């Protein structure tokens, strides 16, 4: 029997048990106001007697229960099925035959290109059981996906997943491909229906198999909408090189939930309190011990860095362990930049997998200009995208000779501003955005740069020719508007010689801000700014620009 305690103000324990340690617990009062947060799997709050609603969030799924708290109570929440591209047991987007395919095909070798490490890919369609919808994917779900070895001197295709992998088109189709490789960094390239190419780095570590699981999404091409792999929602897990994928392995579920938490984070997320911890205590305890799943360690270390208060000792332990488990892994070395290790990371010659890792590298490049190799840095200028948690590069790179016009405001047009996939609103509706809520969000302040201006044949010669990254940086610095305005007034200004000069002070904090936003290492960013200065200063219809570094 539960009797109300009308005059009692002493607190009463309310214990919450969840099926996942990564589950987040929210306690709301009787009016729905958020009182307190915590993490599973066991969390006890001391609350005044009252009526409460307890919400448990696991990945993108939620459960809730109400309780009239007058005496100590325990509420138990069963593990909930959440959405994941990895066909793990206990997720809401996994068919049994997908689990079997991943389990079996990850233990085979479809392509041999080296030894010592392995890359496994599973690309699959998914529709809810009982869905009346037409099959979304009529061709191979791995269409347009190829694995490359990429470096300063070579770019060599290893295989097309469509032809090299195993495929089954019964039910929700899937394609799986295991490639034996030498340890190193590779690229999964995706050719979009528009012809644009996206490159997603994949790190192969000695003794480990890197497993990438991808859903498909809709892209718009010249022939209409087409389904291709969705890089943003990729799940990446690690297993022993001979071990294969085990859909029932509990630690993989924890790693996937950590990845989803990382993908959902920004530094200032609406409706969220950045001061609160992002990592459950249970996970910290796991990390304090000997953890054997390095991908979980990588995700967890990034989450620790996103917390306002960093437990440096634990962070160093985790990253130290990771460095011993995964040699020369760019993501681990990026984390090591913040671990104050005596053996500091060397020059980054290859890109990391995670966008947060690239953020850390570009941020550190302000104080360490030689941190990134020329090849890697140049490759990144103007080409960095953030897709979900992942660092993705566009293959195209506009050279100076491809410079585009910045036309007058009255004819100012931008092309393909919104989406690398050029998806329309209607097309996006069909994407299945709910399969994993917030799955494609950017996780860093780094936004893909916005501007791709259209060449304007016949525009006056005085028009300013800027590369799109120059345009984007000008926009971000807040000077684009002044440039456009001056250009509009260009004739008079040039005649009167009264072009207003722009002086931009660039202290290290601001340089870090711009570098991380555009994913450009500091030396290359300075090059972009120099180019911008040069072009503005040689054009009489726009203000002169002077960037002063402090």
């Amino acid at each position, binding site marked *: 029997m539960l009797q109300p305690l009308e005059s009692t103000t002493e607190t009463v324990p309310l214990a919450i048990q969840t099926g996942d340690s990564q589950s987040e617990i929210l306690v709301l009062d009787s009016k*729905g106001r958020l009182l307190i947060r915590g993490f599973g799997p066991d969390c006890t709050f001391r609350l005044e007697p009252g009526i409460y609603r307890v919400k448990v969030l696991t990945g993108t799924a939620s459960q809730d229960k109400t309780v009239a708290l007058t005496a100590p109570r325990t509420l138990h929440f069963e593990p909930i099925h959440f959405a994941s591209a990895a066909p793990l047991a206990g997720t809401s987007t996994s068919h049994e035959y997908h689990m079997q395919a991943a389990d079996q095909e990850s233990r085979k070798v479809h392509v041999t290109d080296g030894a010592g490490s392995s890359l496994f890919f599973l690309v699959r369609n998914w529709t809810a059981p009982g869905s009346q919808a037409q099959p979304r994917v009529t061709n191979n779900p791995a269409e347009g996906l190829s694995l490359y070895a990429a470096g300063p001197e070579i770019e060599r295709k290893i295989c097309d997943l469509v032809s090299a992998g195993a495929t089954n088109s019964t039910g929700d189709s899937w394609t799986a491909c295991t490639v034996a490789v030498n340890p190193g960094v590779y690229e999964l390239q995706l050719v979009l229906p528009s012809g644009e190419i996206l490159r997603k780095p994949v790190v192969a570590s000695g003794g480990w198999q890197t497993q990438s699981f991808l859903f498909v999404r809709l892209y718009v091409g010249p022939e209409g909408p087409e389904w291709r792999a969705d890089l943003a929602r990729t799940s990446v897990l690690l297993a022993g090189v001979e071990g294969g994928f085990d859909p029932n392995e509990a630690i993989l579920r924890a790693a996937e939930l950590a990845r989803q938490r990382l993908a959902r984070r920004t530094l200032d997320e609406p409706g969220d309190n950045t001061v609160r911890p992002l990592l459950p205590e249970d996970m910290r305890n796991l990390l304090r011990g000997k953890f054997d799943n390095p991908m979980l360690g990588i995700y967890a270390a990034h989450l620790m860095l996103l917390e306002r208060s960093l437990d440096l000792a634990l962070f160093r332990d985790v990253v130290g362990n990771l460095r011993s488990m995964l040699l020369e892994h760019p993501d681990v070395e990026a984390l090591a930049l913040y671990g104050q290790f005596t053996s500091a990371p060397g020059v980054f010659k290859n890109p990391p997998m995670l966008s947060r890792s690239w953020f850390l590298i570009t941020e550190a490049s302000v104080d360490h200009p030689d941190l990134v190799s020329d090849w890697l840095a140049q490759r990144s200028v103007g080409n960095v995208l953030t897709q979900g948690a992942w660092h993705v590069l566009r293959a195209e790179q506009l050279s100076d000779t491809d410079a585009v016009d910045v036309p007058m405001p009255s004819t100012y047009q931008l092309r393909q501003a919104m989406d690398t996939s050029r998806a329309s609103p209607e097309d996006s509706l069909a994407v299945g955005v709910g399969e994993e809520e917030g799955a494609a969000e950017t996780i860093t302040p780094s936004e893909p740069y916005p501007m791709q201006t259209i060449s304007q044949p016949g525009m006056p010669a005085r028009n300013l020719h800027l590369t799109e990254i120059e345009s984007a940086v000008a926009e971000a610095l807040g000077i684009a508007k002044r440039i456009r305005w001056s250009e509009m007034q260009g004739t008079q200004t040039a005649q009167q010689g009264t072009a207003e000069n722009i002086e931009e002070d660039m202290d290290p904090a601001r340089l870090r801000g711009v570098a991380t936003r555009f994913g450009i290492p500091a030396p290359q960013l300075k090059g972009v700014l120099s180019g911008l200065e040069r072009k503005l200063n040689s054009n009489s219809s726009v203000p002169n620009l002077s960037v002063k570094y402090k």
Partner: protein
Amino acid sequence: MPNKAIIVGIRKYPELPPELEGPKNDAEMFRDWVVTHGGVAAGDAKLILGQEPPPVSALNANPTEQALLFEFDQLATLAEQNGGCLGDRLYLYLSGHGFGQSLNDAALLMANATMRRSYHHIPGRLWADHFFANGYFKEVILFLDCCRERYSSALLNGPGYLLPPVPPAGARRFYGFATKFGKLAVERKIDGVVHGVFTATLMNALNGGAAEEDGTITAASLKAYLFENMKNFLEPQDLEDQDVAKEPDLFCDPPEDKFVIAKAAPQKFTITINLPPGSENKERKLFGEHFVRIADSAADGKLQWVVNSVMRGMYQLLLDADSYILTVNGKGATDVTAS
């Protein structure tokens, strides 16, 4: 100092289906609220509605982003002429088609946008932050009732600050997006008129649904109301649709309970509690927040108990010694569940 409001509702997009019905109603409804309850003089509430009937081509459709940028520039200019601060509070309300370019923001597509020209848009939070960070207003309140399907780039038409200035001490903001990132906002016929579900919930909250007993609507109570009640304005099929937002996305600088958004008489409902079978001959007591007893009744042999003047929230119902929790949602419906 005066409050200001910029309110945009775009219902018809010549080249961007589907046609909407709610934004005009919603913008007008919000405009009426800000001038009657939001402390904005009629002349300071700028209402920008879509052109109706719209032109055949999006090329000639209005309003474009330039119309809104003009209003923003005008506010900034006036603020600068006024010593840097233009008013106590700025309301920005944007309703129409839209998208989510990042976790932090959403953008309203302007009337001249098309499937291929989605760069005709205004990013809501970027501009709200601009007015907030520069101290042009002491408080900035942004509501954006549009979809936030993921579009993976492009922050165009913003104020252009990479590192915005530090806002003055005491500045506050409340931002409300109709959906979480990646989800769809919907409009539905509510009480015979089509409204955006987020705006319908918001207006119900501002008209007293979110008011505390003392009549204040704080950021905390507004957030709680919106989170808990938006789903009550959806239709059953919406609740089954994984793409449709069931909750808004809200952001407020702490302390949320100290930020008074508005004042309104709290909504109170007459509720009919359907009692569980077998309890018709049991004594009833109803307890509210902090277990304050708000009603009791002797057994009357019936399985329904009518209680007057009940505010939204969760309550404990005692039937003799048996305890239940019931929820009075913001629409006044009742639901009894065993605890």
